[in-house]
């Protein structure tokens, strides 16, 4: 555990308590079984916003607390444990980061306090296919007389069904820029993708969407801004995955300690002990890289890209293995929908894909490291 200050410890404890009491895995099951397209329980999200979690990386001037990314990571870790379904990562982390990093005063004023309060749900719309490829953006943003005209399709946008604001990456004459696109603007249509994790994902079609000058976030050549935003999203996702892996491990460990086979609890079988020891070791390493990346964001370190790729690649590998072992070590019961193991593996694979899979980040790590 990184060295936390008192406020961070309080925040984490509060998050842990709320999650365990108010949003256990059964809460996620309820959301799923309700069949909602929204993918989360608005009341729960309102409660999270009321506790200040959605504004953690937003400056106080715009209704946030400016507690930093390590703090937000602590909360995401806790909500990850029980698979809390909410737009916290999309809206409170990814989209908020884009506005904080690239927004003008008036853009910040227009959107940030709504995001912090939970009234605005924002989503980051970058990819245009099933794989994360931020260099392959074909959506066009063309200057029109009174602003911008945007055309293209964004795929698998998280919270795409419920978001009232999209941060859209589009190609400009100068490179790639980020644009603020309200969810209800004319020419924007959504197509829901019902996915294995039962959360909201949608393709967003922009058919010549007409926006004003103030839609552009940062400069027309915003590739650097996009990178910064993506790295924050990656690190936040890794924090959520850390919580998931830890809970998956704990649930499995508890099961092994309680299940009796051949007159022994499973926990006493040495082959299983060594597998659990290996998983536990992997998770210690995972925690280190995730916390280091979160701290790197707060410290403004210039090597954040390397650390973010290290964190996301490691999180992917570890949660991948952990989610497989969770099912295998539970045996038959883990195969049933009645058990939660399936929830973890389904969500795990979605997050593994989000903002770059392990191959993507290993390649990026190596290139950034000069080999």
């Amino acid at each position, binding site marked *: 555990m990184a060295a936390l200050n008192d406020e961070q410890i309080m925040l984490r404890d509060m998050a842990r308590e709320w999650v365990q009491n108010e949003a256990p895995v059964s809460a996620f099951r309820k959301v799923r079984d309700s069949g909602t397209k929204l993918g989360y329980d608005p009341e729960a999200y309102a409660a999270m916003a009321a506790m200040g979690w959605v504004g953690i990386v937003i400056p106080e001037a715009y209704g946030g607390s400016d507690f930093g990314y390590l703090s937000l990571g602590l909360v995401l870790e806790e909500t990850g444990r029980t698979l809390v379904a909410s737009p916290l990562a999309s809206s409170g982390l990814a989209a908020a980061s884009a506005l904080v990093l690239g927004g003008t005063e008036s853009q910040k004023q227009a959107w940030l306090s709504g995001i912090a309060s939970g009234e605005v749900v924002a989503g980051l719309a970058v990819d245009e*296919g*099933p*794989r*994360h490829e931020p260099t392959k953006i074909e959506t066009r943003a063309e200057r029109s007389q009174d602003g911008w005209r945007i055309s293209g399709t964004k*795929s*698998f946008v998280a919270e795409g069904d419920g978001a009232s604001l999209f941060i859209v990456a589009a190609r400009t004459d100068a490179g790639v820029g980020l644009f603020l696109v309200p969810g209800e603007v004319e020419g924007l249509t959504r*197509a*829901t*993708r*019902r*996915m*294995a*994790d*039962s959360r909201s*994902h949608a*393709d967003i079609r922009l058919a010549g969407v007409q926006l004003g000058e103030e839609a552009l976030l940062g400069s027309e050549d915003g590739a650097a801004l996009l990178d910064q935003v993506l790295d924050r999203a990656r690190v936040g996702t890794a924090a959520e995955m850390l919580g998931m892996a830890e809970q998956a491990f704990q649930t499995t460990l508890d099961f092994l300690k309680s*299940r009796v*086979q*051949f*007159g022994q609890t499973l926990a006493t079988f040495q*082959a*299983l002990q060594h597998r659990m020891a290996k998983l536990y070791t992997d998770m210690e390493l995972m925690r280190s890289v995730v916390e280091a990346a979160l701290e790197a964001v707060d410290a403004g370190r210039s090597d954040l890209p390397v650390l973010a790729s290290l964190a996301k690649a490691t999180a992917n590998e570890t949660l991948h293995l952990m989610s*497989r072992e969770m*099912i*295998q070590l539970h*045996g*038959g019961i*883990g*195969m*049933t*929908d*009645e058990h939660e*193991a*399936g929830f973890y*593996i*389904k969500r795990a*694979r*979605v997050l*593994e*894909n989000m903002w770059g*899979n*392990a*191959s993507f980040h*290993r*390649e990026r790590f190596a290139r950034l490291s000069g080999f």
Partner: protein
Amino acid sequence: MATALDTPTEKPLDAFREEARAWLETNFPKSLEGKENAFLSIDAPAQTSPDYLAWKQAMADKGWGVPTWPKQYGGGSLSRAEARMLAEEMARIGAWNPIGGMGVMMFGPTLLEYGSEEQKQRHIPPIARGEIRWCQGYSEPGAGSDLAALQTRAEDKGDHFLVNGQKTWTSGGQWADWCFALVRTDSTRKHEGISFLLIDMKSPGVDVRPIRLISGSSPFCETFFTDVEVPKENLVGPLGGGWTIGKRLLQHERTNLSGGGRLAAAMGRSLVDIAKHYVGTDNEGRIADADLRQRIIRYEMEMRAFTMTARRVMEEAKGGGVSTASSILKNVGAKLTQERAELTIEIMGMSGLGWEGEMFSESELSATRSWLWGKAVTIYGGSTEIQNNVIAKRILGMLDHQ
């Protein structure tokens, strides 16, 4: 990619091969070409198309659904060599065996070995014709890998047994006509207290509840027996002799399951093709993602090694019967099945995680479901861990008493 050793080298067309070829050409409906559902017998209710029914009828009349079983019980009485030729000829034209399921794969061979003449005459022919579906009543909620800890009781009531208890993971229980079950007839002894009993699923007191899996499907059930009366004639082998028979049946299961990896490879496009489609290739024709490509190479190599091993084991076990290598093949086949499924959804990216709806192609949705369902293959039929115990103890002799 060429399948090398998988393709039989050219052989002289002997008389049987010619007969088989001619018969298949006459009887196999072209409409069914390649339409086999690998998980047919447990994953879904029976097919009912006219072509399917006609094909099944033809195969049943010929006895070729169970080609090596004796003719007097409805089999084909073919030699192993002939059966292989038949399989080759079927594969050649995309034909497939419409008669399968647990009755053919596991229960039939076991009953042929241990059943009384009367039992064989009654139960084997309907299996050979694909008329009766059998399910397996082995696992119980409290006894997972430790099968012998089972608790379902069968009390001796003179002319019948009275069965009470609960089974789980009854594959296809909701569609099955009969169940072969391990039941406890003596609670004072663990292994020797177990008997092998045949239970009519339509008997009063049998209640079946499908289990929903993480893949969304429900190929298995929980089966409850409440005061179910089972005639004494349905006991296979001696009272208390069920463990031996039950284990033998599991060996047949394992031998069949070990084909899993191969099965997976036979289903759908090759990984390489999927990768080329979703990921693309570089200017030298290599799959563009170098990291992914390395893992595909390893998968393809191990898959080839597995196929070669399965063939080798089959050739070595000349005289028929069950090879000691079945645990190895089960583990490797199961691992490869899962590996392939994980690679497939990874290659497809977010598109490999679709659950339903028209935003995903059929093959994408099926990739998601197969991936999840495939998590079972290292658990059922003796988990990977149990097989490793078997390898270590029975094959390698890593026991305490040395």
